[in-house]
């Protein structure tokens, strides 16, 4: 088997084994209701993680997404409370702002040649600060259109529901996979992650691709913010603190190499599902405390980093022998 697929296979195997263990202990976890909730509860995280996967594939990092999600939520809530415009118009406005915001960060990273870490850190402060300036209260969203969107779902056999936001996450993942593997932009992202100098020699437009990647991440963070505001029916500037860490963890557990250039969008979906599964298990158990989630995710992160290190070591040795 191509060693490229090994991390992805390991992630899927771990998910299936973990799910089997959960079912052995709590047979009710097999129901489509649990699966439907797993998708709905992690929809905003999943959508943001698709953007994060592209950023990490290119060898960068985006710390701003949690703050951008919160900003989008507050922006929508304030806009819908203060004016009478239709939520769909507000959605378009929010997406335009977050996409431009991401593109701006990409431009700074490329033109000022600064590390993405510190640029997106500034972006995180700025987005969170803008959310604070808009409002420090938790504002409810009571627009009837929100109720319509929330009540839209596809009923699975067994009583489970794929809600609009859960379905949207799956759609975003499908589009993400298409962009990564079937477009020139996707190939450019992989090339950039393999090494900037190499990519430049290959004729990859470095500047355009970098700006595109962070704009895409900003767009998806905005979309994630819309989904989060649908999920909670409110906008709050202190919400979704640290979501970028969950997203990074999901990407790594999904088998993407953090140095860039290797990995799969599909792996991130499984990474999200594994995190969701741990939380669901803890809810089912009832006696385990929530902090075990963090420790388990930390351990999983560590295990996958070691696995990737081992793989690189093995392929290097094979190449040397060949």
């Amino acid at each position, binding site marked *: 088997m191509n060693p490229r697929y090994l991390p992805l296979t390991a992630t899927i195997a771990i998910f299936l084994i973990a799910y089997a263990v959960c079912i052995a202990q709590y047979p009710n976890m097999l129901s489509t209701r649990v699966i439907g909730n797993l998708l709905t509860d992690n929809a905003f995280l999943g959508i943001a993680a698709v953007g994060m996967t592209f950023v990490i594939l290119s060898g960068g990092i985006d710390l701003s997404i949690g703050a951008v999600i919160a900003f989008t939520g507050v922006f929508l809530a304030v806009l819908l409370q203060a004016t009478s415009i239709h939520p769909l118009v507000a959605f378009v406005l929010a997406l335009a702002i977050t996409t431009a915001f991401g593109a701006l960060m990409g431009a700074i990273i490329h033109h*000022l040649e*600064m590390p993405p870490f510190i640029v997106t850190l500034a972006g995180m402060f700025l987005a969170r600060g803008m959310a604070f300036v808009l409002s420090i209260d938790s504002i409810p969203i009571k627009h009837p259109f929100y109720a319509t969107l929330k009540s839209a779902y596809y009923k699975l056999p067994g009583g489970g529901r794929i809600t609009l936001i859960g379905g949207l996450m799956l759609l975003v993942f499908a589009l993400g996979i298409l962009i990564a593997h079937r477009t020139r932009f996707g190939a450019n992202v992989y090339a950039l992650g393999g090494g900037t100098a190499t990519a430049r020699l290959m004729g990859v437009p470095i500047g355009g691709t970098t700006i595109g990647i962070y704009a895409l991440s900003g767009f998806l963070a905005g979309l994630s913010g819309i989904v989060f505001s649908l999920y909670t029916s409110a906008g709050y500037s202190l919400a979704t603190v640290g979501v970028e860490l969950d997203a990074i963890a999901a990407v790594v557990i999904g088998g993407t190499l953090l140095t860039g250039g290797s990995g799969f969008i599909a792996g991130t979906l499984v990474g999200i599902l594994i995190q969701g599964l741990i939380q669901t298990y803890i809810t089912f158990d009832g006696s385990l405390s929530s902090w075990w989630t963090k420790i388990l995710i930390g351990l999983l992160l560590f295990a996958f980093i070691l696995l990737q290190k081992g793989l690189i070591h093995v392929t290097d040795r094979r190449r040397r022998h060949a």
Partner: protein
Amino acid sequence: MSATLKAYAVRLFPQVAALAVILLMVSIAFPGFFRLEMQNGRLYGSLIDILNRGAPVALLAIGMTVVIATKGIDLSVGAVMAICGAVAAAAITSGHSLAMTLLITLGTGILCGLWNGILVAVLDIQPIIATLVLMVAGRGIAQLITEGAILTFNDAGLIFIGSGSLFGLPMPVVIWFAFGVIVALLVRRTALGMLIEALGVNRRAAMLSGVSTGVLLIAAYVLSGLCAALAGIIAAADIRGADANNAGLWLELDAILAVVVGGTSLLGGRFSIAASLIGALIIQSVNTGILLSGFPPEFNLIIKAAIIVLILVIQSPRAQSAFVFLSRARASEKKTAGEAK
């Protein structure tokens, strides 16, 4: 000696000037800003407040400077603070003496640093990712120790570290200042600092020229862990309890920011602990200044972001080459003007 002093002055000038401008701006908005009072043998005033509140970030910045100089980064310091605060509270409430508690807590910090250091130096994992593991899991571990509650304590000795005073200054100020001086002397009066810079510029070249890079790398992360432990003790002693959820939350970002404001490049190499400490004070002055001047605290983060962007622009390779170009152009203009005369 005076040449060395001059070099220091040139190196620290931008940071000191920035700090002075910020303090002046705050004093315009808040007239009583520079007033100091002596009460019960301890100094009080806004300036002292900045030094005191800035203690955790200043301590973290010391370790972070050395780690960043090795071309690394330590994201786990906030979580390590939470772990160490929890360990200190748990140890003192279970009846250990103060000395023993401090020993256990500092040992925990060193252990956390050792873990990070081994991941980076021995397993050769990228620092951002290696320290991410402890950052994610650390808060969980801290909550495991405090069992999810805020663990309070009443030990006078431990509380003294957070709110006592020595030589008329609050204890946290004395601790970070003394620790900063010790570390700065240690790296600058020996060859250690130069070796760290060599390692940060090019690890392979440093190794080939005989620097034991592995040990140095681990030592840098251990120092960072130790700083986080000290900061964790101060944060816990200050509120007389260990809060696993909020102790040191996002302080790793403030510490990295302090180092960047201090002019140490994230790409490794040349570093200055004094400049990072001034960077920490700049951040704290902005925080305190916004509160004092009656500006809505909502703007705090936006101002911080603006400062980062400004510093990024000044420090970026493009801008640097532009500065060099401009100064050369000016120099050659002078030269031609002189020749014309």
